[in-house]
């Protein structure tokens, strides 16, 4: 049994909030640079240049990549051989978010859903925990902006629906996000499970790499990802939504077996500044 005081979790969450918001994920940054290189439209090329410069300024000056520093989604994978001591885990995570957002000069964007009163410190976070093997704690912070979060969609298909229907739904979700949600997008798709499982999978898909070799064997998911990416880029939404070769940097799919009576499909839209950071304690 390894003992970890939740103070360490608080510190790690705080640091990850800052890292995720100011230091663009390396895979996202290389996907942006690659797309910039492929672009032929003059204006789109210029916008890519702004995005690359923006990431560099954010890192250099420790400024938020985007003013929407998001709702903090904190995923914890806790090894079953870990004994957590100190205050409650939930409190430690929320204190970490408060500290990180204050240290980073980030925006407090969290409000009561009914009164719309701002909590003033960007807490509470959306926390998800999973018990895994081992004696480590793996933490991931996703500062999720709402420009793109507002464009997410979920649909409960009939089990007899074909892949064609599923593809149309996903492509339509991107089309409907259109120029509004900071394209080019990272498209996260969750297929199967239940209503909430599909939604969770679509978020987890946003954490998968968006550049380089993404799948070693050509699984059905991988094939679908490739087909969808090709189709989505035909939409020509482009950077800033005013045309260009790249409408999505990547389409990532996570799936889970589902029930004979249904087929849940969820789409999470990530903006071009798809942010997340991970640490292991």
């Amino acid at each position, binding site marked *: 049994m390894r003992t970890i005081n939740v103070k360490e979790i608080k510190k790690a969450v705080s640091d990850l909030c800052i890292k995720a918001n100011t230091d663009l994920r390396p895979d996202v940054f290389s996907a942006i640079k690659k797309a910039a290189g492929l672009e032929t439209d003059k*204006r789109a090329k210029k916008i890519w240049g*702004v995005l690359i410069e923006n990431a560099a300024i954010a890192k250099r000056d420790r400024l938020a990549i985007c003013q*929407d*520093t998001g709702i903090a989604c904190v995923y914890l994978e806790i090894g079953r051989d870990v004994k957590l001591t100190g205050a409650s885990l939930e409190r430690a995570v929320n204190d970490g978010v408060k500290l990180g957002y204050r240290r980073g000069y980030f925006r407090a964007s969290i409000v009561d859903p009914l009164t719309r009163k701002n909590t003033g410190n960007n807490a509470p976070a959306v926390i998800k925990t999973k018990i895994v093997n081992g004696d480590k704690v793996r933490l991931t912070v996703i500062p999720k902006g709402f420009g793109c979060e507002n464009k997410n969609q979920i649909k409960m298909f009939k089990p007899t629906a074909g892949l064609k229907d599923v593809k149309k739904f996903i492509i339509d979700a991107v089309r409907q996000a259109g120029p509004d949600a900071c394209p080019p997008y990272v498209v996260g798709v969750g297929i199967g499970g239940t209503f909430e499982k599909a939604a969770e999978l679509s978020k987890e898909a946003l954490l998968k790499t968006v550049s380089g070799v993404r799948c070693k064997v050509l699984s059905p998911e991988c094939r679908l990802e490739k087909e969808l990416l090709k189709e989505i880029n035909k939409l020509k939404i482009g950077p800033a*939504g005013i045309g260009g070769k790249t409408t999505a940097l990547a389409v990532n799919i996570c799936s889970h077996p589902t029930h004979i009576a249904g087929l849940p499909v969820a789409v999470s839209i990530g903006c071009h500044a798809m942010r997340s950071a991970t640490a292991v304690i």
Partner: protein
Amino acid sequence: MRKIYLPLSKETIEDLRIGDEVLLTGTIYTARDQAHKRFFELLKKNKKLPVDLKAQTIYYCGPTAARPGNAIGSCGPTTSSRMDAFTPALLKTGLKGMIGKGSRSKEVISAIKKYKAVYFLAVGGAGAYLSKKVKRARVAVFKDLGPEAVYELSVKDFPVIVGIDSTGRSIY
């Protein structure tokens, strides 16, 4: 690139066409969802707005806090369409410019044409880059709204693209 000094003149507005890339210098006001809702309610009650928007430009933006020594934090545009329901009423009072990201409703497009105004696009998700174009910032009204307060920003060479021009044409 063409430089424009704010407030926008009638001639400048009529001269701008979709796709034009311009640099704005002068004063702009930030306002997003809650500020728009308040403006709208005041207008509905025939009350005067706490900031005179006549000939002014609104920026749909809720910035992050400024680091010491900086005028402002990250300050890119937010999704404009959320402001659509309130926009025609503001244009009627004399608002001439809007800066945001994304598409607008048919009603907003016709109001832009009717009142001879212009809608600019700023690059979304480039808040760190855009913060360098803001020279001064102060809360103008609705301080209680925190990051959603109305800020008066003094900008220099703030880069935008004409998204909807005064003839009612849209870039999308």
